[in-house]
């Protein structure tokens, strides 16, 4: 029952993030931070070893079902990111702030690189510096900043629902 509760609350958080990401951020900011990545990385590093993957899978399914072409690419990418984040779970004690934020920044950069190599490399290979300095790094800074702001909130959701399981 409590597992169900955790699932539902995480799904709600994902939905809220989705609406912010697709409606409000593009209107207010020139470049949007990646809220999905924040959720996947934080749940991966804070939750059970499976949390990251499951959250990544859910986020990916949502994005792919709404408008993914090819459908499934986002699912694969976010699932792998969730898995990698959960690898750092063991060394994380809940009080350290730097590790999840550092991992978030690294993951955002990795995500940018993945999109670049999958979608852009074969067409615009030589322009990597442009994409690096104008999209990947600014997005990383935005994401890291929003991640710092949301850290307490997400860890509260996580801790509250995870206690009921164990």
């Amino acid at each position, binding site marked *: 029952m409590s597992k169900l509760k955790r699932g539902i609350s995480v799904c709600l958080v994902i939905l809220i993030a989705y609406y912010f990401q697709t*409606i409000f951020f593009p209107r207010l900011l020139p470049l949007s931070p990646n809220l999905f990545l924040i959720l996947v990385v934080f749940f991966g590093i804070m939750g059970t070893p499976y949390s990251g993957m499951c959250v990544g*899978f859910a986020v990916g399914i949502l994005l792919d079902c*709404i408008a993914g072409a090819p459908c499934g690419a986002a699912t694969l990418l976010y699932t792998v990111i969730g898995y990698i984040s959960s690898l750092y779970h063991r060394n994380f004690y809940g009080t350290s702030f730097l590790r999840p934020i550092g991992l978030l920044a690294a993951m955002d950069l990795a995500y940018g690189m993945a999109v670049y190599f999958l979608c852009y490399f074969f067409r615009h290979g030589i322009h990597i510096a442009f994409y690096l300095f104008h999209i990947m790094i600014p997005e990383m800074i935005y994401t890291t900043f929003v991640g710092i702001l949301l850290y307490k909130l997400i860890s509260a959701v996580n801790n509250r629902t995870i206690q009921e399981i164990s």
Partner: protein
Amino acid sequence: MRRKQKKTFQEKKQRRIQWKPVYLLIVLAVLASAMIAGSLRHPERNGIAQRAVRFVVVPVQKCLNRIGIPFHSENRMPEEDLQKENAMLRDRIQELEQEQFRYEKGQKELERLRKLYQLNDNYEQYDTTAARVIGKTDGNWFSTFLIDKGARDGIEKNMNVVCPEGLVGYVSNVYDTYAKVTTILDESSSVSAEFLEAEALCMVNGSLQQIRSGTLPITNIDAEAEAKKNDTVVTSQISSKYIPGIKIGTAGEITPDDTGLSQVSTLVPAVNFRNIHEVLIIKAQKEPDVE
């Protein structure tokens, strides 16, 4: 001896537990790969899961989007009258601009003694439908957005999307109640275009890099063509996707390219892409999508 065996057994057990997340990863990754393979083979087919997710998510998005607009709007005018007047005036300006545009073109046509082909007057002659922009799902890497009309409203793939000011892009994916529009700024976009005055064919390419300075690259202008700065660039007759005669923007300085075989230029788009709330979709199609 027995102790040792016991220990290795425990180690094995531990290792098995440690490996478990990887199994889940493999299962999920295989699932995702299967989805990719499936969607590559049947890009238009929609599964039950996809429909269910859309059924839950998209209506809320449409509502939220309406709430969001007043917060964003730069000129907050609570008085309805002012807003009405404003809307009316804007319509009037667009009307006049279109009229001017049409006039300009009409005169050109007369001057050329009605050559063999004629540019279409305006997209007003086509059946259009208005749609609201409801969100941007693809993050910072792609210039796409979702509109609140889909297959049920008669939207089809590859239909042209315009604003009163000019060309926005085309419908790249259609779903039941909404559709995805890829703009001409997207790196995957290239529009076959034409200088209105010089009648020179060219290509307008999407570029995330160049649009930061507010322009798009124009390439493949014939080396002999007498294209001039500030000429209006419209979609061409030979485009397979776009209806001819839709205004794209204004050309900048024209320079020969590196090889000297053709000329290149820049284009200032007519549409302000940062501020699109509503678009028109032209229901006529140049070539129906055959796959």
